């Protein structure tokens, strides 16, 4: 992988400002220059001061900035002026919410089941026989359940059941210190919930950035209610990538002891939050996975997982504009 610093994670506090049409981070009386032409996305994890002039330059260059709070909680995104807008698509996307919502939402739920199946099948093949029932259910029953329903709330219940059963499987996959009884979101109450929350937030921001580079409207979503959040389409397109990018990273970090409860969580907070070094380890592993390349089976060319997110955006556009069937990314089929 070429060391392109299109993405930078800023953990130090300081000031970001514009100088000579480029970006400078002032940290401890020292200037670090971030070349504007090799920057696509910035993450701020600490106290960062920004000026309007800086934001102007970032906006013009189409650079997105994601802000996280001191405890790693997602705060928000500086979203530069839209450069890609197609009125025709925006109208069609809104109409698709009205007429084809269940088709798109259903495809996403099936996609989640497919990718979880593929991730867990690996453990099943290595002797975790207790997954058999769940795997059968994912492969055979979920597609039927999805096809039979034409009510969004019923579909969301299927989705909820998929995740709930998936979380139960953690007891078998992960060491006891990371086992989890229940998924608790805000705020997370134990190490595994903390990892999931952090990973999902990171993925959410990655998808925002990829959708920015398409013509899709970030607010019109299908599985989630539109404008549930400002970027609710990102919630939709994130779903099938959670097993692929977030959970595979978590399993790798925990099972290979890159992240441990003692070293990487905040003891004072009952280990319910990743500490700074924990976040850094996770980010490095997550970025490596995002940039990993595979041979894309439809396009017949090398493609990174990050790019696969963008391609799912294209698939959605093609479904909306050209009635081509929409099947989100499948880890098994590599397409």
């Amino acid at each position, binding site marked *: *992988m*070429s*060391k*392109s*610093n*299109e*993405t*930078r*994670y*800023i*953990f*130090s506090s300081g000031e970001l400002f514009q100088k*000579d*049409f*480029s970006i400078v*981070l002032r*940290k401890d009386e*020292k200037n*670090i*220059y971030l*070349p*504007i*032409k*090799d920057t696509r996305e910035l993450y701020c994890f600490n106290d960062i001061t920004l000026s309007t002039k800086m934001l102007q330059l970032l906006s013009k260059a189409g650079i997105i900035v994601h802000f996280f709070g001191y405890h790693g909680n997602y705060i928000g995104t500086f979203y530069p002026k839209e450069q890609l807008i197609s009125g025709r698509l925006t109208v069609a996307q809104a109409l698709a919410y009205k007429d084809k919502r269940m088709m798109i939402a259903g495809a996403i739920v099936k996609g989640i089941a497919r990718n979880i199946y593929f991730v867990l099948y690996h453990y099943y093949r290595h002797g975790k026989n207790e997954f058999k029932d769940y795997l059968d259910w994912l492969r055979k029953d979920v597609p039927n359940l999805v096809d039979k329903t034409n009510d969004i709330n019923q579909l969301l219940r299927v989705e909820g059941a998929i995740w709930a059963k998936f979380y139960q499987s953690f007891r078998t996959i992960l060491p006891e210190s990371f086992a989890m009884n229940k998924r608790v979101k805000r705020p997370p109450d134990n190490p595994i919930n903390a990892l999931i929350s952090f990973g999902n937030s990171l993925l959410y921001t990655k998808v925002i950035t990829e959708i920015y580079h398409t013509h899709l409207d970030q607010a019109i979503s299908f599985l989630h209610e539109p404008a549930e959040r400002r970027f609710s389409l990102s919630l939709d397109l994130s779903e099938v990538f959670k097993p692929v990018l977030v959970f595979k990273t978590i399993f790798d970090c925990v099972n290979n002891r890159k992240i441990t409860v003692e070293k990487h969580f905040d003891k004072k907070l009952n280990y319910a939050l990743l500490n700074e070094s924990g976040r*850094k380890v996770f*980010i*490095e592993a997550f*970025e490596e996975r995002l940039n990993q390349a595979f041979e894309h089976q439809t396009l017949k060319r090398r493609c990174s997982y990050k790019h696969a997110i963008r391609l799912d955006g294209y698939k959605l556009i093609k479904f909306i504009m050209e009635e081509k069937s929409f099947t989100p990314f499948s880890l098994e089929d590599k397409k």
Partner: protein
Amino acid sequence: MKNFNYNYVILFYDVGEKRVTKVFKICKQYLKHYQKSVFRGHITPGNFLELKGKLKKVIDPEYDFITFIQTMSESSFHEESMGNTGIDPESLII
């Protein structure tokens, strides 16, 4: 256009005092400042052309001298260093 796969460049410059700041300012937009008169970093072929075009406009070809070494990526050369570099300008996390 033949060298389409080059995505990394190391740039050395020796320019007259009057033009140093100009050259420095241009390089800063594209590459990371690595050593006193050395920049380096990932750069796309299009940006590389643009960088060269901008530099050509400000230097005096009689007195100034700029060298570019292009490689496929930062992993296609071996590097050793000594002493303290301070902050690594190329790291993912800063």
